[in-house]
């Protein structure tokens, strides 16, 4: 079929949410048209084992490639020429986008922590935020199926609000490296857990995907298929069914409704020709990413209504959330001059610090309502352009300082829960259009005191851990209001079309079906009702899988 033919489903976006929908629907026999604004892409393009010195400027970040020369991002970043967004006065919001098949799954860090029972019912627990229409028990089997399909390494630690996966679901985690073992020793002494991390990286072969070969940063893209990205998995699998049609360079502007108020398809700009085209389907699935999906809804005008499509609740654009981020780092004299060996490993977390202080939150001893986890980085990595940081002098003593210090610094980054607030949302900026003539988003963003207190908790806890291990801070952390990340900076933006139990205060039901339009679904991070400290993508995929199963059933029964 061609993009001009009507399909059972039109899926907008090819990232985590879109590709999962396309795979689930094609697997169930439905024909799917996937519309992707970016160009076609495969990680076969990735120069995986190139050295930094093979790249301009040793591969450092530039305004063109902010995360470094080899980062897989195509035509994206914090700034996209011709595709701006705006910010309300006094607000700052950072929005990392890409324009490529597979979206940001091509270079995400693959950290994959499933949410726990507390995370789905935050309002019930402490009166803040909003409850999901699903419980952890509802989601558990979908997490198991997703983790198994995707391939996630990790271990089941049985920790509070950090649920185990089902038997046989997880792949074995890679061994701790020396500095992780060292941190664990300190953590054990003061009851801060240091346990195996979970990442969407294969340590055992599944299907045609090879296990990790322990080299090459996963942000470059993984052509051997070990690090999960939709371009080496869901998309090729969906293609194999013969049911998937992909149109790249297809920038969707709005959803089209028929006379009865049902979605009949979408309008997109074909970037190659500049022409407007219409794609037709029995069901429309939006997965253009948080923000973009809200933008499509806002830009879909409904006769007689001013608030955009699927927005009778007024919640589209609202409840914009990102992960709380801040960091500290320290030198550990005890790690200086340790014996060398290859510490590249899976080029990411083998260990991490899950949140441990729920009991003291419940008892009121801790003044921040929600938790965080800590992602840690150290190791004898590729020295890189930062290797001389903090050093002094020159000559033979400089060389010995470099070598002594190498591998003795550990960075700790907080990844925390944000509670939705009324000051954080996006809307349409009626004065600004992108190069396709499509009105752009305007962001409002503010943290609340809850998040700032959480930063303090993190800083104090890490100082205690560093102290226990005889480390010295590289620099004293700033006050929370300065130390906290900017909105969007952690690239875990979710919300803006939340799911809920009630059509009055949510945009979709528990299956991502918009309350207002029976055949319009959302399967990206927009539907998040809260932003737990767990990185969102594994949950985006588990929800997308569950919602797509619902769509497939309804297509089969003729309901759609």
């Amino acid at each position: 079929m061609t993009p001009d033919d009507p399909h059972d489903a039109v899926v907008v976006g090819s990232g985590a949410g879109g590709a999962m929908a396309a795979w689930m629907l094609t697997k169930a026999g439905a024909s799917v048209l996937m519309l992707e604004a970016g160009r076609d892409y495969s990680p076969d393009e990735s120069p995986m084992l190139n050295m930094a010195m093979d790249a301009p400027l040793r591969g450092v970040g530039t305004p063109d490639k902010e995360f470094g020369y080899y980062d897989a991002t195509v035509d994206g970043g914090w700034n996209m020429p011709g595709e701006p967004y705006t910010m309300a006065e006094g607000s700052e919001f950072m929005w990392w986008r890409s324009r490529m098949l597979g979206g940001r799954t091509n270079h995400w860090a693959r950290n994959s922590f499933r949410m726990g029972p507390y995370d789905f019912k935050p309002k019930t627990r402490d009166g803040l935020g909003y409850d999901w229409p699903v419980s952890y028990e509802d989601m558990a089997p979908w997490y198991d199926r997703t983790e198994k399909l995707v391939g996630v390494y990790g271990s089941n630690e049985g920790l509070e609000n950090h649920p185990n996966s089902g038997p046989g679901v997880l792949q074995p985690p890679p061994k701790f490296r020396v500095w992780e073992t060292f941190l664990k020793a300190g953590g054990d002494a003061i009851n801060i857990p240091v346990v195996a991390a979970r990442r969407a990286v294969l340590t055992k072969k599944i299907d045609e995907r090879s296990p990790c070969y322990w080299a090459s940063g996963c942000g470059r893209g993984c052509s051997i298929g070990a690090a999960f990205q939709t371009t080496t998995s869901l998309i090729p699998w969906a293609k194999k069914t013969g049911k998937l049609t992909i149109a790249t360079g297809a920038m969707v502007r709005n959803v089209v409704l028929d006379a009865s108020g049902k979605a009949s398809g979408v309008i997109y700009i074909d970037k190659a020709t500049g022409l407007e085209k219409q794609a037709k389907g029995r069901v429309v699935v939006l997965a253009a990413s948080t923000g973009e999906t809200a933008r499509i809804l806002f830009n879909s005008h409904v006769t007689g209504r001013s608030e955009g499509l699927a927005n009778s609740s007024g919640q589209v654009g609202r409840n914009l959330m990102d992960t709380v981020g801040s960091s500290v780092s320290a030198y550990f004299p005890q790690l200086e001059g340790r014996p060398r060996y290859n510490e590249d490993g899976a080029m990411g977390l083998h260990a991490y610090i899950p949140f441990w202080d729920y009991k003291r939150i419940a008892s009121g001893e801790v003044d921040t309502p929600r938790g965080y986890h800590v992602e840690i980085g150290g190791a004898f990595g590729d020295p890189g352009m930062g290797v001389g940081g903090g050093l002094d002098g020159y000559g033979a003593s400089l060389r010995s300082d470099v070598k002594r210090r190498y591998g003795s610094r550990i960075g700790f980054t907080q990844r925390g829960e944000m509670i939705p607030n009324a000051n954080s949302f996006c809307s349409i900026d009626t004065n600004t259009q992108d190069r396709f003539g499509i009105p752009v988003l305007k962001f409002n963003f503010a943290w609340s005191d809850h998040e700032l207190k959480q930063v303090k908790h993190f800083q104090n806890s890490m100082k205690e851990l560093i102290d226990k291990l005889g480390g010295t801070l590289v620099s004293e952390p700033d006050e929370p209001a300065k130390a906290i990340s900017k909105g969007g900076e952690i690239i875990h933006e979710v919300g803006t079309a939340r799911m809920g139990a009630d059509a009055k205060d949510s945009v979709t039901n528990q299956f991502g079906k918009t309350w207002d339009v029976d055949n319009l679904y959302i399967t990206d991070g927009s539907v998040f009702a809260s932003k737990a400290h767990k990185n969102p993508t594994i949950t985006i995929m588990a929800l997308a899988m569950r919602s797509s199963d619902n769509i497939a059933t309804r297509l089969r029964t003729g309901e759609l």
Partner: protein
Amino acid sequence: MTKDLITIDRRVTLKWLMGTLAVGQLAACGDGAKGISWPEMKAIEAAGIGKDPDFSNITVPWPLTMTAAELEITAELVDLILPGEGDIPSPSAVGVPAFINEWVSAPYPDQHKDRVLIINGLKWLDDESKIRNGVPFIRAEAAAQTAILDDIAFKDKVKEGLDKPAEFFGRMRSLTLGAFYTTREGWADIGYMGNTPGTGDYAGPTPEAAAHIKGVIEAMGLKYTPA
């Protein structure tokens, strides 16, 4: 501060007046004890990397801008920063000066800042050497070269009035180390053993590395858990 500054300036001025050197305009304004200014330079306008570079044909798209003379001092300086030692080559032997050229010629704001610092800094180094030693930096005796570096290379011991040259030196040190330790020779020197694909499970620490950390942890009175 002012007192010292005057002393230095007087010495400089004297030498200058004595006509031993033609150092160019040592105007009595601007940063630095010698009154040499660090003029802003015009930003480079050239093609950058772009948002979708072709990884199968990697190129540095911008023209290189350093002069042969600047590259010569750069080579001298980077080799003083991290002299070769035994089998370990010097930075100039593994292309670090060419890298600095690539760096300061890049059409990006960070690199532009470094360009202003470095091009002016190289000039300062030469002028300073001419003033102190009567010869350009690369022709000065080793001891005369290090005497200048000793005034700018140590955070807590920067000679008064030499903050800007010290900033320049700090940047050169950082770029030199970064550029050197991202070469294969640099990897060998520091002991980076990665970027080597392997099969099977991740090997983890060597027995030696594991025994070492076990010792460290236990000496701290903490509990060691094997990987």
